[in-house]
């Protein structure tokens, strides 16, 4: 009675094995698809690698931004012009005052970096334009960005990594990088010709990346913008020292509000809208879009700016990003830097947890 039954089972087992294999394969397929999406099957550049490299270069300072770590919080308002309203439907351009949180900073991952050696200065802004109309941006004082593509910025950060023993950058590596990257010429020329001003207040801040404004009629225009200081330029003195920018700015704001004009520069057909290393010709039309007024400033570790991510892709309806590849990379990298520092910040707020 047992014999024929066993033979029958043995024959069935083979096809059962086949079916189990099929089940395993069909289950592995979506698992593989997910692994591919997550980048586990390739070596593509990730936001985490960027932030790791920034930590290599600037050190890991718990709670601080992984780049532009040194800065101060500022606040005030933005008052748009009627001309801005004609170019974009964004709520930040509706008549009136829109409250602003901001942050002035210098680049680098070191929160105690030297002000007088900073290659440039920066401004992050969050303008309240109402629901679905918040505008965040992060601007630099350089005329152009140093490279056009995220992977090249990563390579530059690698070349800038200080020697673990001497703590200095390797001049040879940097020279080799710049030789391989002729697109850095415009940035380096700006750097060599530019004498920094003596204050955050009389520095100019530029979007560098391009964006698209959409008006009431649906017409789209590519443009870049700058915040042009209304405070007069004075060159940075040789003996300012490593720590003057924040104190200077707080002193000025205590005396009177500091103002910038938001100037839009409109692209012409054929201008390089996806390449932040290339400035547009100076004769391109500009539009005065309003005035930024900063009337308060304070230390970043207690200020409102500390826990804000000035992600340049948080845009109001009526403004959208161009195809500049730096923008998506910035958004992804800032988010990872934000998550790391906010997690550390939370631990510092609850040291016993």
């Amino acid at each position: 009675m047992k014999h024929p039954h066993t033979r029958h089972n043995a024959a069935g087992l083979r096809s059962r094995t086949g079916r189990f294999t099929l089940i395993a394969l069909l289950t592995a397929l979506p698992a593989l698809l997910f692994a591919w999406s997550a980048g586990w099957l390739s070596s593509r550049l990730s936001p985490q690698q960027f932030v790791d490299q920034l930590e290599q270069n600037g050190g890991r300072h718990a709670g601080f931004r992984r780049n532009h770590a040194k800065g101060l919080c500022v606040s005030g308002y933005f008052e748009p012009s009627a001309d801005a309203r004609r170019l974009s439907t964004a709520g930040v351009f509706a008549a009136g005052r829109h409250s602003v949180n901001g942050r002035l900073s210098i680049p680098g991952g070191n929160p105690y970096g030297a002000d007088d050696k900073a290659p440039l200065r920066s401004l992050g802004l969050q303008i309240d334009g109402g629901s679905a109309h918040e505008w965040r941006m992060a601007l630099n004082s350089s005329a152009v960005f140093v490279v056009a593509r995220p992977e090249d910025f990563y390579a530059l950060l690698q070349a800038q990594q200080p020697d673990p023993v001497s703590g200095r950058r390797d001049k040879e590596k940097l020279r080799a990088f710049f030789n391989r990257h002729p697109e850095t010429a415009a940035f380096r020329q700006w750097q060599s010709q530019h004498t920094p001003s003596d204050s955050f207040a009389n520095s100019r801040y530029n979007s560098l990346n391009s964006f698209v404004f959409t008006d009431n009629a649906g017409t789209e225009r590519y443009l870049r913008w700058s915040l042009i200081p209304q405070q007069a330029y004075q060159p940075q003195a040789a003996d300012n020292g490593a720590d003057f920018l924040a104190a200077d700015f707080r002193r000025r704001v205590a005396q009177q509000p500091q103002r910038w004009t938001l100037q839009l520069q409109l692209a012409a057909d054929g201008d390089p809208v996806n390449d932040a290393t290339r400035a547009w010709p100076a004769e391109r039309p500009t539009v005065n879009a309003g005035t930024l007024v900063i009337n308060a400033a304070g230390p970043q570790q207690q200020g409102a700016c500390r826990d804000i991510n000035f992600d340049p892709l948080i845009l109001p309806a009526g403004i959208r990003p161009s195809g500049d590849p730096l923008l998506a990379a910035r958004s992804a990298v800032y988010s990872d830097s934000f998550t790391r520092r906010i997690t550390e910040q939370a631990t510092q707020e609850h040291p016993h947890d």
Partner: protein
Amino acid sequence: MTDHFHWLIRTLHWLMAIAVFAMLCIGAAMVSSVAGSHSWLTGLHRPLGMLILLLALLRLAVRLMTRQPGLPPDMPRLQQRAAQASHILLYSLMIVLPLVGWATLSAGGYPLILAGEVQLPPLLEKSNTLYALLRPAHRWLAYALLLLILAHLAAALFHALIRQDGVLQSMLPGRAKK
């Protein structure tokens, strides 16, 4: 045993199977890439996730109001329990995961824009402590959902290819017999 789920459950099941799996891949891709796709993937992740939340609630309501085909009576008790528990977990995660995503953005002080002029209000106050909890929670819950879906798929195929008991048919198109 050739009974079927309500047609609306079946339609939603397959639409959402695709959408939920796509969301897992979209989420994993957008946080691991600096390419241009990061922007549009992020723009898709939020509205699609909120749509899944809406559909999951609708589906749960239909589920509670209709009669289910029921599992084959000859299925071992433990397997029946596991099947029921896994379905409850799948429903829970389809509802909890979007809520945690929404709460993560709120705690981080980010605006949640679904499209154009449509912004959802924050679920909770901006909070570093909550962001530090919710951001990793969203990831680990998503990974749990992925594993659960893979097991669920394997189980469905087990029913179809090994047991051949009509359980897969109960989720497929076709008129209910009897």
